[in-house]
């Protein structure tokens, strides 16, 4: 690895042993401790089994983990000679652990990655390329056809696929039917299609008590720079722009499209006055908690929220497509988690991993039922039994949004970019700074991040 490492310790002890010629007594003095150390190390390292199990790491997401555990049990029963060893870890530090493990070559054979981090990993060669042939497809093009258009794009880099998604998640607009009805609006006909609609409708939904906003008309979540980017990247695309230029080396977030995007982002606070920005910044334990509690009438959140809120809350909710600037050129944000493979595996082990992937991914319907995330298969909606879900769980809306969806800008420095945009957004929303100035500063920071160092 190039480090001034510690490998010589055991060797050094041995050397001292050999050089010590003061006779057997001294030799024996070193022998016993060494034996003890060796024995302890052996015991501590655990029994070395004849075949090492295949390791699979996931981030923690309770309903999802339960299903994964069940799948692992099924596999282990059927394949007792190639068992899977499954572990899941707390969500937020999961990527730190994964990074530390990848950097010390001690990561699992199979692990979950989030699509935004894919370029960071592929540029460092820590993901093994997936072979569609081993998953039962003719080639990558064939595999793409089996999925919704664009659903695999987030996991393809330089023409190779690096991770396979069991879910596709998308952001859509959730509205509170009861609030609509109270305000004399029809939630099925009068729901907002554009951002301006949200503003005008929101004005009828917002509730003030003195100068305190007790119910927001609409709000964006502000707790995470990734969420900010999901909104902002989509907005800038809706205006025809992009965060980085085609080469990925220059920041174009401060273009006209970017400024317009930022203005939309902030207009609900400053112009329409239907958002209270401070309620969500770093103060909400759950990003989508205000909506089920009736503190906001319209909120953009991901598909999994349907299951999270529960049927009781969903009785009062309706999900509609992601708001657009131009309904003829719709764009929505999609993201997802996917299973990736360790690059340092033997050919045989790689085949095993692919077999496991095939097994894990085979049942789209159960994935959806257990995790409440849509499955990105093209014919997902046509699977038997989906009608119920389409009616009550807004599956149509999600699949529609997924099909117009695009993953966040790909870049190995995506997190630095997210943070820069997030700070710019905070300045504009909280301090009412001029959007162009804020984005200019963000671009300076982004350029610094992209520069070769």
């Amino acid at each position, binding site marked *: 690895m190039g480090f001034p490492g510690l490998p010589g*310790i055991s060797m050094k002890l041995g050397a001292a042993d050999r050089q010590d010629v003061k006779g057997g007594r001294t030799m024996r003095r070193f022998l016993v401790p060494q034996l003890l150390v060796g024995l302890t190390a052996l015991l501590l390292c655990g029994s070395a089994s004849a075949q090492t199990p295949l390791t699979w790491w996931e981030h923690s997401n309770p309903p999802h983990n339960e299903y994964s555990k069940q799948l692992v049990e099924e596999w282990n029963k059927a394949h007792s000679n190639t068992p899977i060893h499954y572990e899941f870890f707390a*969500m937020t530090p999961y990527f730190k652990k994964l990074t530390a493990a990848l950097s010390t070559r001690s990561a699992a054979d199979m692990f979950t990655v989030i699509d935004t981090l894919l370029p960071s990993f592929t540029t460092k060669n820590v993901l093994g390329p997936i072979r569609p042939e081993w998953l039962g497809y003719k080639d990558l093009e064939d595999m793409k056809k089996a999925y919704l258009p664009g659903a695999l794009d987030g996991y393809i880099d330089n023409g190779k696929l690096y991770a396979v998604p069991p879910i596709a998640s998308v952001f859509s607009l959730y509205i509170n039917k009861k609030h609509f009805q109270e305000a004399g609006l029809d939630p099925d006909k009068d729901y907002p299609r554009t951002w301006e609609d949200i503003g005008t409708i929101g004005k009828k939904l917002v509730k003030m008590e003195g100068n305190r906003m007790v119910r927001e008309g609409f709000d964006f979540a502000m707790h995470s720079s990734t969420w900010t980017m999901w909104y902002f990247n989509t907005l800038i695309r809706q205006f025809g722009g992009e965060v980085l230029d085609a080469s990925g080396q220059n920041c174009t977030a401060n273009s006209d499209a970017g400024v317009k995007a930022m203005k939309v982002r902030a207009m609900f606070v400053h112009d329409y006055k239907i958002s209270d920005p401070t309620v969500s910044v770093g103060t909400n334990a759950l990003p989508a908690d205000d909506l089920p509690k009736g503190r906001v009438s319209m909120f953009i959140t991901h598909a999994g929220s349907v299951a999270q809120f529960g049927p009781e809350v969903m009785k009062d909710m309706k999900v509609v497509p992601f708001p657009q600037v131009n309904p003829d050129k719709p764009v929505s944000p999609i993201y997802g988690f996917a299973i990736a493979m360790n690059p340092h595996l033997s050919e045989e082990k790689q085949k095993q991993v692919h077999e496991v992937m095939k097994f894990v991914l085979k049942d789209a319907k159960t994935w959806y039922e257990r995790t409440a995330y849509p499955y990105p298969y093209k014919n997902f909606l046509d699977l038997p039994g989906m009608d119920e879900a389409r009616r009550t769980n807004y599956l149509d809306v999600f699949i529609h949004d997924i099909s117009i969806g695009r993953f966040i800008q790909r870049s190995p420095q995506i997190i630095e970019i997210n943070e820069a945009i997030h700070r710019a957004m905070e300045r504009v929303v909280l301090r009412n700074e001029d959007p162009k100035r804020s984005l200019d500063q963000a671009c300076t920071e982004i350029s610094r991040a992209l520069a070769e160092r």
Partner: protein
Amino acid sequence: MLLRYGGLLVTLLTILGIGVVLLPYFWMVSSSLKTGAEVFELPIRWIPQVLQWANYPNALSRGSFGIYFFNSAFVALAVMVGNVFFCSLAGYGLAKFRFPYRMLCFVLILSTLMLPLEIMLVPTYLVARELGLVNNYGGLIIPLLVDAFGIFLMRQYIKSLPDSLIEAARLDGCSEFGIFWRIILPNCKPALGALALLSFRDTWDQFLWPFIVASDDALKTFPLGLAQMEGIDSAAYHEIMAIAVMGMIPAALIFLFFQRAFVRGIALTGLKE
């Protein structure tokens, strides 16, 4: 008269202070007995409508918490004992002996407290791996056995012990280690108590190192179990609070146990000058 009211005022302030200090704790306990929806209701309701005692067994079923608690307890106790021993040994050496480069040793030891663990994470993990300490109890315990804070604490305390105690023991022919074991340690009860308590709590509470070094579910410690209960953007906070309340019990127990060490008046009389 001022003194009389002063005493009363102090007591009142103390009680008020306790109230303020314990407010977060009350919220935690009350949240652990609410339904998921009630937890973040505003304005805050202190007494839940219906006490959800079921939260506790439910929360425990979310992960192998029995194992996590055991691991945390085992590791924390082992580290506590190790800390108390090695740190007092080193503290004694630094406090009462004059050997060359003594101050340098002390400053070097202190300097280990000055870098955050995050930056040393990967190199420390590499060291642990070389020594075969990954994914086993050794890895959870051994790297934590000596802590510079403990050494600092014991050194400062032992400095205040009279030299004459030690000299007398030496004249009586006691071995150096014997002096440490039979004279110094028994006289350090308050500091040892403080060290034991803080060391136990720190180890019990540690997240990052066990997280990096242990991958097996059977090795996870309590904070790891707690953190795992959070999903991507949803979590059963009422159950998390239940686990958190249970997690406070061991530290409280240890504190009560070592409380005696803080009792004033060690039975030694003043030296006749």
